[in-house]
């Protein structure tokens, strides 16, 4: 007998049923004493032991399916009739709804961009494969400058060697500062999220790829004090808990002066012994935009001034979620992904 066809027929049949009397007819047809399934069970006794077992199991599964279809349909029909009298155990867990998860870097990026957008910063993007000019020269880091050491670079192999237009994977989002200023006039405030790359041996705190958010705010009176205020406000908004911030001197050739920003998070409980608690952690390099960049963009350096910064997204995510190994972000593992 064709159990598959029987199953199909029964399924179609029950799906069309709209009332209890028809359901009863269906029950008799498919589960009743004279149903095809019952007859099939009766006929099993004639088979060999092995066949009996095999066929019996199959038929049993179908019988179970039919019973459950019947119960479900009966419930459905009855609940339509007398929902109020139906017994509900509200302490029973609800139906499990399956949802995917956004990657922690996406959530962190969203948090940060939202904070800046609230303060009027526009989102701008730029290419990941960049020219040497935008990544270095235009940022006051010509070939031979010792500060190039700060950006170990992955270079793109070009077929025709053309020294003048060497291509690389951008080592920071800063080239977009130059690209943006070439075609826009101040005042403005922008942020530039994006993927960056470094020639780096990977370990728990170093990766060959990472994400940054570049910031650039230029106006007639945008000062160092303004930079501090904006960053303090954003950090508060991102972490939504008490965070200590400190600003200290630093150096990048495309800013003058340069600033480094560190944060420290108080452990919520004494037992939290993560590395990131109670220690100053670098989250961004920043500074006042070097007038050379304004000159290159054709701005009047006497009129315009402003600040720029580069914020590490992985770093923020690691602090936020207490993740101690940066490599977890780029080695998709369901056990990690499902936690966010």
């Amino acid at each position, binding site marked *: 007998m064709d159990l598959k066809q029987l199953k199909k027929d029964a399924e179609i049949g029950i799906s069309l049923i709209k009332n209890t009397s028809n359901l009863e007819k269906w029950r008799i047809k498919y589960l009743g004493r004279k149903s095809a399934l019952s007859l099939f069970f009766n006929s099993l006794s004639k088979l060999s032991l092995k066949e009996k077992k095999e066929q019996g199991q199959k038929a049993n599964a179908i019988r179970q399916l039919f019973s459950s279809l019947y119960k479900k349909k009966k419930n459905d029909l009855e609940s339509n009739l007398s929902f109020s009298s139906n017994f509900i155990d509200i302490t029973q867990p609800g139906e499990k709804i399956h949802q995917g998860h956004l990657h922690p870097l996406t959530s962190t990026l969203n948090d940060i961009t939202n904070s800046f957008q609230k303060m009027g910063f526009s989102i701008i*993007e730029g290419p990941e*494969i960049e020219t040497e000019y935008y990544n270095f020269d235009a940022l006051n880091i010509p070939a031979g400058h010792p500060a190039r050491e700060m950006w170990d670079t992955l270079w*793109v192999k070009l077929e025709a060697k053309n020294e003048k237009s060497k291509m690389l994977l951008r080592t920071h989002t800063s080239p977009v500062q130059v690209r943006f200023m070439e075609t826009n006039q101040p005042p403005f405030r922008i942020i530039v999220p994006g993927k960056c790359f470094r020639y780096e041996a990977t370990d728990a705190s170093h990766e060959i790829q990472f994400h940054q958010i570049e910031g650039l705010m230029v106006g007639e009176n945008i000062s160092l004090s303004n930079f501090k205020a904006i960053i303090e406000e954003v950090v508060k908004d991102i972490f939504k808990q008490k965070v200590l911030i400190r600003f200290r001197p630093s150096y990048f050739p495309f800013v003058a002066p340069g600033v480094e920003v560190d944060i420290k998070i108080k452990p919520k409980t004494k037992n939290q012994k993560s590395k990131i608690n109670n220690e100053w952690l670098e989250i961004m390099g920043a500074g006042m935009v070097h007038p050379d960049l304004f000159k290159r963009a054709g701005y009047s350096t006497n009129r315009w001034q402003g600040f720029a910064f580069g914020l590490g997204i992985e770093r923020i995510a690691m602090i936020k979620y207490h993740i101690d190994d940066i490599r977890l972000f780029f080695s998709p593992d369901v056990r990690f992904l499902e936690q966010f």
Partner: protein
Amino acid sequence: MKFSYNWLKDLLKFKESPEKLADILTMYFAETTVKYYGKRPVLDVELLSNQVAEASGHLGLARETGAILGKIFIYPKINLKEKNLAAKDLLDIKIKSSNCNCYLARVIQGIKIKESPKWLKDALADCGVRSINNIVDAANYVMLETGQPLHTFDFDKICSKSTDINKKEIIIRQAKKNEKITTLEDEVYDLNEDIMVIADNESSLSLAGIKGGKKSGISTNTTNIILESANFNGVNIRSSSKKLGLRTDASWRFEHNLPLDLTGYAVDRLAQLIQEVAGGNILKGKVGQDIFKEKKELIPIKWENWEKFLGWSIKKKEIIYYLSLLGFSLQQKKDYILVSPPCFRNDVKIKEDVMGEVARLYGIDKVDSVMPQEVLTIPLHNEFFEFRKQVKDWLKGYNLEEVYNYSFISEQDKNILPNEWQQKLIEIENPTSALTKYLRPTLLVNFLKNINYNFRFVDKIRFFEIGKSYFKDKKNLKEFFVLSGTLAQKEKSNNLSILLYEAKGIIEDLFNKFGIDKDNYGFKSLENTEYSLLLEQGTAIYKNKDLIGVIGNPKKGLLKEYDCEGSSVFWEIKLLPLLEIVKEEREFQPLPKYPAIIRDISFIISQNILVDKILNVIQEASPLNLEDVDLFDVYIGKNLKSGTKSLSFHLTFRSKGHTLKNEEVDKEMEKVYKGLKNIGAEIR
């Protein structure tokens, strides 16, 4: 960089503990931590690239620390006991290379090589330098003290001048083609014209600014020595040391363009120290020349600029106080202040640097935070960024996990890809390993690795990623955002179409959410797309004539290569063209006034006739008032002739003008039946 706390304390006489001093340096100078060698504290200062020239010696750091603590530190004066014999009578210096800004030498006769005294050894050990003998140690000590690299030659091992047998000659020149040098460690280096050497009449003696040569090195028998102190062009030293693959403490220092005033000071200081630890007679005078004069910067800064730039009102008195502590010379005028940085601060060039220095000593952390007073503006809407964000949010709702993969694929991955794909790959010139040799041309490769990895923990995988893929297109380097995803299960299914249809359903629903009308895109065969080399069953999504994406089952061969057998489906859609379609706005449809009649139709037909064709036939039968056609069941299997399938559709009829009667619909259904029978359908 390591600095001895005790050495610094001897120079500056401060009270701060090592830890306190490290905190102060971190907040006002550069990040500093304390380490201990036994009981001797050592400060590890992470000098910033612009601070190396000024403060890579203990004297420089003492001067910096002094400025922070409010003390002016002056370099100790050096008094030498010189003999009457003039060094210039025994030695000539000839500078032939423009990469040498200054070269000064002294001669000492009758020294005695021996072990260094304990205080000297300790000081070197604190800074991580190994003790060798008193002469080499003295040169290293003075380098750590002043920041100026120094070198000593054995006077007697240097050739005499060709014109004067009684005189030695040191020549600073670019190396000759095919010239070689053997260093103190017996390493042989091939040189070329880009590399500067210190030489005598016959051959090179050392790699200028990088490493000493074997020929004129100090040995235990040395009695007469030449002390070298020089200033070299940083860019040249950096490129030479890169070319030679030889980086030394000296080359690193020279790369940062040391201040010129150090050259003479350091050679005098070395002569003094050598006499102290090795005896000998210092000949009178320095030999050599400055050929490069540093020009003095004069930077005018308007008084009103200070508050405008820094953001808080700073008093003239404070400005003058901090700049004086840092050794700047100042001239106050009515409207502005004229600032001249000291020669050891060649990193200060523009007014922003000067104002930054004042902010630094004031304490950047203490600066008031003030919100900017700017015109209120709503930020520009970045459509593409917001679009990608929305796509992610919706994909999450389909029970898909978002992943971030590497932008790279490996050499091995390359070899697995078909030729057509290999040719498009962008190669990295200096990959960190074979694993990061190429940029990914599709996200499929890394997804296959993800499947393999995650099958260790779960039986089913549902991943998506929005990221860039990269490829070469006629020498142009291209990168564009794609939305890719995979559904995979460990269990082998005979019916690969289940996952494929789910993926297609996800994409169709996603498009629908964005209001993309089916008229704006279409599914066609994978054939003739490059993806047909990677996927076997599947479909290509077109917008007009442009391929914007694919959905399909990865080829069995690929699954095997990545050891992720089972069933899986993959999709990849270019996001920018998709956004173009979305931009056309969604329009509201008025709610229907009259009820619909739904008819089901079920028929058996050859498997070769695709659903697409059947839908066309139904449309072409042009039944009146047909609102929607919906496939709700497909059956292939027993009870059906092989090569046939059973299809069931809901047909929804609705009139805009009246309530439809059954007879009206019957008439229209006849047209449909007829059309279907014409293509061989057997109506059930």
